[in-house]
């Protein structure tokens, strides 16, 4: 099983538990259009949007992975469904979109049937990695050493 370790360390390679406490278990991510949509753009003589690079937060409290609505819109991806979400203000509906995730550090590709659009504007992250992806992984959060591990 391939394993990816992400450590928060200082410039002398000393563990910095405060790093993971402050930022959470974040991972670099590239979000792009699904392959079939890229082919459709080509057929229509339209440029294929470049992948959008940023950070994703691994969130065991999220049942489904989410991507910022602005990111999805800039990729030109159209909605394929609706999901009911539970918020402190009561139930709310959000759109679902297809998308492709690539985690360059871990070299993991995930082609999604659909993920949920969410308002992450103003956050340092552009996606949440929820339990739909984590259902395929082993995830270990080591707060004392300031690191996390993904096995997949």
């Amino acid at each position, binding site marked *: 099983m391939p394993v990816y370790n992400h450590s928060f360390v200082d410039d002398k390679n000393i563990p910095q538990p405060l790093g993971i406490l*402050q*930022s*959470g278990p974040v991972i670099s991510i590239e979000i792009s259009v*699904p392959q*079939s*949509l890229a*082919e*459709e*753009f080509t057929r*229509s003589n339209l440029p294929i949007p470049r992948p959008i690079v940023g950070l994703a*937060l691994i*969130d065991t*409290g*999220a*049942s*489904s992975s*989410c991507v910022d609505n602005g990111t999805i819109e800039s990729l*030109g991806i*159209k*909605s*394929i*469904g*609706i*999901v*009911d*979400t*539970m*918020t*402190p203000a009561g*139930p*709310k*509906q*959000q*759109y679902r979109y*297809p998308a492709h995730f690539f985690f360059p550090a871990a070299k993991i590709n995930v*082609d999604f*049937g*659909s993920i*949920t659009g*969410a308002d*992450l504007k103003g*956050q*340092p*992250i552009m996606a*949440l990695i*929820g339990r739909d992806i984590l259902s395929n992984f082993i995830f270990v959060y080591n707060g004392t050493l300031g690191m996390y591990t993904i096995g997949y």
Partner: protein
Amino acid sequence: MDTNILQKELDYYEKNKELFLKNYSNQFLLIKNEELLGSFTNEVDAYNTGIKKLGNQAFLIKQAIQTKFIQTNYSLYSGLIHASL
């Protein structure tokens, strides 16, 4: 989400839900306007077919299941992502 661009498709699904559950149980249905365009064993195949038939426009992919899925993202919807003291 202000206006639901898939409302017509969702209404069509709800109207025919019992029939879909009987004939396409657990399948992913591809719906545009008030027409069922196909049934698939997974969401990706449904999307790929939708793109080929309809191009890049909104369409509904709905799994024919009785249970309603409610998504929970506790920290996001509580406004607690990257909260600090």
